[in-house]
């Protein structure tokens, strides 16, 4: 046989899949069992972590793997939230859980279609222009939903209760957000651990060369963009149900867009674990450590992004890894 056996050639991309699956399953079991011992405050922190982690992983599929930084992903969160909220208000007769399920499906489908429609023009742009155009898309989407009475964006829209009888709402949404985050992680992991992962990474590294290797770059970029948008809307619609009442300002938030980027940057771009760790660090930092500075939420995350870019461009995890490598030497 060739050098594969002799030299332990292996891909850094696909890596050690078995170990990661094991870690993932254990993490999921621990998270699922945790509510038994968590205080209500800790439950809320947990929900925030799932929310941020799901969004960050969804963002990272496009931003981290394909290298297309979207500065306006909150557009998909908001559109998903409003699709779910509007639809659920039309469904009266059916049972709450069916309403919940149908709303999620509708939100994800609507965002998938919208993303597919705009994907071609926006993904032709080089990276920095893509970033700013996405910022514009979020702005315009928010304005459209705010200005047309039909969407009820400015006055707000009540999202029906879907929690099954006998279950505490925070318990239900703890598990709902956990499931949403888990879906984001699993879908992203499945996509990037094979051919698609290679295609996206070569696009990030050098798009023209990728084409020369026979990679249909347009198609893979569009795939990543659409799936990323769908996953984002999934988290968004669950979030809408969990807060029960949404306005344009509550779901189209620039700081959501920013948080997705910050989590990925903290944890290290182009991985799945990175954004998850980033979400944990960021949430604990803003909700527990800096809980009193909440009136400066934007400024805090804004400052965080500046600090990370300047001091730890490969993420905090990258920094730790680098330090560990130095110690080993």
């Amino acid at each position, binding site marked *: 046989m*060739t*050098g*594969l056996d002799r*030299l*332990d*050639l*292996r*891909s*850094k*991309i696909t890596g050690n899949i078995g170990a990661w699956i094991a870690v993932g399953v254990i993490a999921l079991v621990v998270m699922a069992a945790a509510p038994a011992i968590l205080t209500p405050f800790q439950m809320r922190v947990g929900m925030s972590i799932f929310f941020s982690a799901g969004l960050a992983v969804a963002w990272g599929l496009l931003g981290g793997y394909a290298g297309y930084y979207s500065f306006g992903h909150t557009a998909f969160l908001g559109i998903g939230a409003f699709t779910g909220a509007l639809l659920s208000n039309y469904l009266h007769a059916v049972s709450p859980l069916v309403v919940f399920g149908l709303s999620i499906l509708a939100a994800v489908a609507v965002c998938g279609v919208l993303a597919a429609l705009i994907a071609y023009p926006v993904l032709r742009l080089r990276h920095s222009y893509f970033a700013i155009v996405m910022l514009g898309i979020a702005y315009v989407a928010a304005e459209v939903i705010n200005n047309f009475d039909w969407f009820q964006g400015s006055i707000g829209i009540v999202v029906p209760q879907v929690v099954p009888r006998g279950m505490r709402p925070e318990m239900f949404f703890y598990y709902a957000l956990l499931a949403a985050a888990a879906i984001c992680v699993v879908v992203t992991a499945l996509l990037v651990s094979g*051919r698609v992962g*290679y*295609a996206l*990474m*070569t696009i990030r*590294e*050098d798009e*023209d*060369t*990728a*084409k*020369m*290797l*026979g*990679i*249909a*770059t347009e198609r893979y970029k569009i795939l990543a963009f659409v799936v990323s948008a769908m996953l984002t809307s999934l988290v968004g619609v669950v979030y809408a149900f969990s807060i029960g009442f949404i306005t344009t300002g509550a779901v189209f938030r620039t700081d959501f867009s920013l948080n997705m980027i910050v989590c990925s940057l903290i944890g290290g771009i*182009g991985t799945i674990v990175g954004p998850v760790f980033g979400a944990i660090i960021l949430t604990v930092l803003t909700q527990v450590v800096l809980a009193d500075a909440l009136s400066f939420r934007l400024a805090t995350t804004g400052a965080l992004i500046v600090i990370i870019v300047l001091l730890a461009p490969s993420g905090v995890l990258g920094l730790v890894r680098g330090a560990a490598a130095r110690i080993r030497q």
Partner: protein
Amino acid sequence: MNGSILTVTGLSKSFRGLRVINGISFQLQPGTVTSIIGPNGAGKSTIFNLITGFLRLDAGDVVFEGSSLTALPTYKISRLGIARAFQISKPFPQMTVFDNVMAAALFGRAGERDPTKVATDAIERCGLLAVANATADTLTVGDQRRLELARALATRPRLLLADEPCAGLNATETKDVIAVINTLRSSGITVLLVEHDMKTVMSVSDRVLALEAGKLIAEGTPVDVASDPGVIQAYLGVPLERSYFEERPQ
């Protein structure tokens, strides 16, 4: 016709009114190495860009194994079996050597069943086994050039376009690259080379195309072209024998 693998007819390209390529026609026979020579700006790299679909041609046709390439996007051209190694190595910097080559093996020409084996073979043939797990941006220039070839090879090409694969390399590294090109030919891959170094051209080519100002001014065996008065006049300025056939101190 007559079993050529690539047939270029009447190839023309202008940039803002300036004709860079002016009605060039040539054919490549399967399993041969053909070199394109010519002074800077003669249009050598433009020909590569036109064949691989990076640029759209104004007139003419490029036919590869019976199918026209002129309307195809770059990635489809690659899938038909045309690979390109760039003059300036463009490895994916943050990926390992193995992953660089693996990406090519996973895509490239259609119909591959065992990409890992293809990638490993390519790495082995280009002598990169020792650095296979290193990230590409840590490689030496010579290794990067070989990675460029390994990656092109892993797309399982029928035709390899190599743009000055030896530029900037020292004598040993140049010899290595030439050895790789020779193995490629012996495994049946057709090679089209852009090369400045006449020593390399003479040692490796079956045929030579000489270009000047977007026109083909001579075509034939290396010796024929090297002694062509038009080529000497236009390109070299001095007789070849004196300037290039002598061993130059490195």
